[in-house]
């Protein structure tokens, strides 16, 4: 019998992923023997940061590093998304360190699942094979389903877990069916090969149908209208430390895989087919997200709808279908990682046991009770609104400019009007914090955990600093575009 040739496996290219996975396994075992679960959080944080360092060291090496027989590629694009996932995971761990203990949920499983989920996200960003995209998608999602139900004794958390699981598996099925049809049309599941075959022309309806089903799968994951029904209940019902992570991480990972598939496999042959679909998704997602957010009386639920609206803004950049649009979407996701985790960190810091303390009226007079917390929340909300000179402003500017340059001026106008609508509900919180007196019976603020303070400081500093000097992150986002 002939000797089996071992294919070259580029383990080094996947170093950040491997670090995250092995930290996860280590924390899983340590969880059994360590009673103080907070130390698990700090270990996880070190692991995540190490993965970030490993990733940025690789970035210096540049170039394209195909790994595992071209099912994954570690390029500037994957690096950039890895950085977003590291930011989201690290900030969420810091939020959790303060939050979980206070609401009586200090479980080691949170950190384990967060690390495994992060690994899945990294796989999604680096994958160049649709089956591997699916693998990453499931690794990420299954961990998130369990995390959503972490507070399983509370009904809303259990509901969040079940709802997310049912909807998520349903959308995974859509995605998988799409992959099967695309495979049928092109004879490959490799993103690059599909692109070459489709550019040759001839494969019409079947590939198009596959693309449509895959888009539905992705739209579920990034919470785009009309596939957003699960989002408010899941984001609101899940423990805040979990919402912090999934509102940023899962969205970024969904966009990571979607943009690569659209831009590499289905461009330029099918650009004219998917562009109108994305434009419709963008308009619906922005408008419905913002209008529904207007009516919310609960800050956590309002932020859930706001995260739907932000997915819409990012769709504006993706719908442009240009390199500029992609880099704008990348930049926005990075900015969003800081400002959204920051906003949820404040929600988590104010929350008491049994999911109490997220109502808008309970933010009244926060300025008097805890001026720094109120100031941090104001920074995040101003940035989410898109006020200059904060990071969110530049993010929106680049997204909308990309749309204008792609002859989608009207789409940019719709997006700007939507940003105007959003001012109303973001400012509602600021008005409560600064202009309303605290309600009777609102106890003085108990003080914030050091880890939460750290998370808030980092997120707020990044939101301000990226706003003042967006250049370096933009340069990174531009280098993140694949050839």
């Amino acid at each position, binding site marked *: 019998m002939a*000797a*089996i040739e071992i294919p070259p496996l580029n383990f080094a290219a996947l170093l950040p992923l491997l670090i995250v996975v092995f930290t996860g*396994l280590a924390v899983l*075992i340590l969880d*059994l023997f360590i009673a103080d679960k907070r130390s698990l959080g700090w270990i996880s944080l070190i692991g995540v940061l190490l993965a970030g360092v490993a990733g940025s060291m690789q970035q210096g090496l540049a170039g394209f590093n195909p790994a595992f027989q071209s099912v994954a590629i570690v390029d500037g694009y994957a690096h950039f998304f890895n950085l977003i996932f590291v930011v989201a995971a690290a900030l969420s761990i810091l939020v959790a360190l303060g939050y979980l203990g206070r609401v009586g949920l200090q479980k080691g499983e949170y950190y384990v699942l967060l690390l495994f989920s992060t690994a899945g996200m990294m796989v999604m960003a680096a994958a160049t094979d649709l089956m591997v995209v699916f693998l990453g998608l499931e690794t990420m999602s299954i961990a998130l389903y369990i995390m959503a139900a972490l507070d399983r004794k509370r009904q809303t958390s259990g509901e969040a877990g079940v709802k997310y699981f049912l909807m998520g598996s349903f959308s995974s099925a859509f995605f998988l069916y799409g992959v099967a049809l695309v495979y049928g049309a092109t004879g490959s599941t490799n993103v690059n090969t599909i692109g070459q075959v489709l550019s040759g022309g001839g494969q019409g309806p079947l590939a198009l149908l596959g693309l449509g089903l895959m888009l539905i799968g992705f739209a579920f994951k990034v919470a785009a209208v009309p596939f957003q029904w699960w989002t408010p209940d899941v984001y609101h019902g899940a423990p805040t430390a979990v919402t912090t992570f999934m509102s940023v991480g899962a969205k970024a990972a969904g966009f990571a895989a979607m943009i690569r598939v659209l831009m590499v496999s289905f461009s330029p042959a099918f650009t004219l087919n998917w562009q109108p679909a994305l434009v419709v998704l963008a308009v619906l997602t922005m408008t419905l997200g913002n209008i529904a957010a207007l009516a919310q009386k609960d800050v956590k639920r309002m932020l859930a709808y706001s995260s739907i609206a932000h997915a819409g803004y990012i769709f504006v950049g993706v719908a442009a279908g240009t390199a500029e649009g992609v880099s704008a979407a990348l930049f926005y996701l990075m900015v969003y990682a800081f400002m959204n985790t920051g906003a949820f960190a404040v929600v988590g810091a104010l929350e008491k046991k049994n999911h109490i303390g997220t109502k808008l009226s309970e933010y009244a007079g926060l300025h008097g009770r805890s001026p720094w917390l109120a100031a941090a929340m104001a920074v995040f909300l101003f940035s989410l609104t898109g006020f200059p000179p904060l990071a969110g402003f530049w993010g929106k500017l680049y997204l909308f400019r990309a749309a204008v340059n792609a002859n989608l001026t009207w789409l940019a106008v719709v997006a700007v009007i939507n940003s105007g609508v959003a001012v109303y509900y973001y400012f509602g919180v600021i008005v409560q914090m600064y202009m309303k007196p605290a309600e009777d019976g609102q106890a003085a603020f108990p003080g914030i955990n050091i880890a939460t303070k750290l998370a808030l400081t980092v997120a707020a500093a990044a939101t301000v600093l990226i706003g003042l000097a967006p250049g370096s992150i933009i340069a990174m986002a531009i280098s993140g575009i694949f050839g």
Partner: protein
Amino acid sequence: MPVDYLPILILILVAAAFAVIALVVPFYLGPRNPTKVKSDTYESGKLPYGDARRQVPVHYYMVAMLFMMFDIEVVFLYPWAVIFRQLKVFGLLEMGVFIAILLTGYIYIWKKGALEWN
């Protein structure tokens, strides 16, 4: 060529006809005399008790899930064992990593008491 698929069409027709005949002919020719025992639910010859719609301990699902996992492990182990010599040290290391990851999960479920049956 569509004509190449003709045998498949014929096969479909034959299969459909067989199913129809097997159902219709006994319906008219066969004697019918049902008793309570005959129309009872049949499951491997065990006597049925109670309704199917009752609560089942969640533990059954845990055990089923764990069984699946370690069953799949064996699915990977068999082909590996067959070409073990050709894969050399590389194969040994890869399988070591695979088993180590599964073992981590095993230690976890064991310590967590998922294997206890009360």
